[in-house]
């Protein structure tokens, strides 16, 4: 059962990374325009260099 002492922290840590990533997306307004973002990715306009 020694393995638990590694596995539990690791699994919680990984879950926590997922949670933080989600919170980051919420904080940075990534759900404000879901439809627009889905279309924007199809446009090749800013493929070569980022939007100034």
């Amino acid at each position, binding site marked *: *059962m020694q393995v638990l002492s590694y596995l539990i922290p690791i*699994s919680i840590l990984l*879950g926590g990374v997922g949670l933080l990533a989600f919170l980051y997306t919420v904080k940075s307004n990534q759900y*404000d*325009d*879901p*439809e*627009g973002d889905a*279309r924007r990715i199809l446009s090749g306009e800013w493929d070569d260099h980022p939007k100034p």
Partner: protein
Amino acid sequence: MTAAMRPQASACPACSAAPAAEALAEMAEDKEAKLALSVPTVHCALCISTIERELAKTPGVHSARVNLTLKRASVEADPEVTAADLINVLDRIGYEAHELDVGTLSATATDKAGRDLLMRLAVAGFASMNVMLLSVSVWSGAEAATRDMFHWISAAIALPTIVFSGKPFYISAWGALKHKRLNMDVPIVLAILLAVATSLWETSLSGEHAYFDAALTLTFFLLAGRYLDHRTRAVARSAAEELAALEVPRAVRVRDGEEETVQVSELAVGDMILVRPGGRMPVDGEIVEGQSELDRSLLTGETVPVFAEPGFGVSAGEVNLTGPLVIRATAVGEETSLHRMADLVAIAESGRSRYTSLADKAAKLYAPGVHILSALAFVGWYLYTFDMRTALNIAAAVLIITCPCALGLAVPAVTTAASGRLFRKGMLIKHATALERLAEVDTVVFDKTGTLTAGTPQVENLGDFARRDLEVALALAMGSSHPLSSALANAAREAGIKPAQVSDIEEVPGYGTQGRIGDTLVRLGRAAWIGAQPLAQTSAFLSVGDGQVRAFTFTDTLRDGAEDAVQGLLETGKEVLLVSGDSTGAVEALAQRLGIEKWIAEALPEDKAARVQALTDEGKRVLMVGDGLNDTAALAAAHVSISPASALDAARVASDIVLLGGDLSPIADAVVTARSATKRIRENFRIATVYNIIAVPLAVAGLATPLIAALAMSSSSITVSLNALRLR
């Protein structure tokens, strides 16, 4: 900036002037204007990049971004860039755009609350998943030290989560307790706190049962209900805000012969204001210059335009039809008749706040019941065993199992589904309990002008005229933008009439249009001007110089779906009434056309509200459908109210549901949908009760384990959500 503004003792004037200029430049930069445009036709990836590129190319624009979900473009630009410039830019590339009042769009504030809830929901979801995994291994047989370790890890995850995620419930429960009331959140908070406390105690004694997972899942499901509820209302609020923002409150003030565009809020009594044809009066006032006709249909329901000349009093909300008018403001802002109407609304609304929602009714029965049950279980077991630990454990189990998880989801899940359905049909549910109230409706009161009719006139008797007369009338009608003239011109052109050769066509604001054929004077306009007897109906008169006068009569066109809506309501056994401020003839004609048996004409705003009140006193549940200022009090007095998007802002604010499109037919459907939604809500309550009836005896008997609690909670929540999705 402030440093530079302070007068500095300096030897060289330029030294102090330079930083001051810099400060001014900085200030101008700070004042960068934020503009918002509604772009209803944007729909594709190409649209986004075209619009953004074109807007960004416009001089003075710093950045532009399109939001496809909201169909909105937000632009940051120099202060001198106006929305009209940007609208022209978009018009050139083929997109229709309207200015939105940025002040009215307070989307960020509401968004913050939603984001906050989402964050708490995410944390609760994460924590409950982890703890549930640990619990599953405990249930499947982890023992002794392993079990204790799992319980301690669960506690470490659960405690901070409960503190963070449960905050909305604590606040709401505390608010209720402070006013010595019980709401649904009181048993929720008690259950969560008691579960965590007993579980901690159990864990510290290496006990077998810990309810950390139950406390967290409870928080998660209830937060999900809260979030759904919030989303539904946020969507409605943002759409309602957009409607309000489309009416940018601006006016043209005339000062020393110069015109300047200002915010309506800046106007003061005594200001001279120019109102162009087609514009709406921003304030109450008196005409000092110009002649025109006024459309007062939104205020009084009358369809016949009234003649206006210097000395004539106007009220905010009236529409100027033909000539430019200069008015002197006599009342502004809160003082205007538009705002005074709000008092009437406030009085009428006090009646509506008495409505208790289904959820509140359930909570009223439920909250005391749960507390009593759990207290009884505690006392009973304590007297039976004299063991505090057992008694507390069982009390916690009873609270958790009876906890209104399914009840918390029962209403929001259904209203979200129903509101979404109605939104797709073009109905915006503004009020949280509007659907429940709509389901109870048995009497429907319609307003006429602007609600059942579209407010666009249509010529009735085109066939009675000689071709020659029609040609003259068309030529004259084309010279004016008056609604009756445009209606006449359209009808004549559709009938294949070509305009006659009429010279010197000029519009005489307030009277009509005149011109010459050879030496004869021809006129199209008001009765008094032409020399005829006015008719009761909306009409325009034509004289072609032969001494005879001919009248074009107009009817209001029916709004799309008006017939369907009335028919649908009559078929489902509702009583339909027509109450209008318009003349008897016009109301009667429309009532007959639509098959409405009961109608009242020439009703004053107070009459309308009184009529609705009288019906309510008879025990009827009244649905009021109206759009004008004269309907506002009645809209607020009714059990539930609907107004079209074209209605005055005041009427939209007073109503519970807004029809977004021009079509009225969804009304009948909406009543049906509301009924089935309420039926689902009741079903959901019943499902939740059945679960409780099965699980509570187990809990009271002390047979409940955390596994049973988790199963009961999850399965009842899922059943309730699935039942809500069945809504058709």
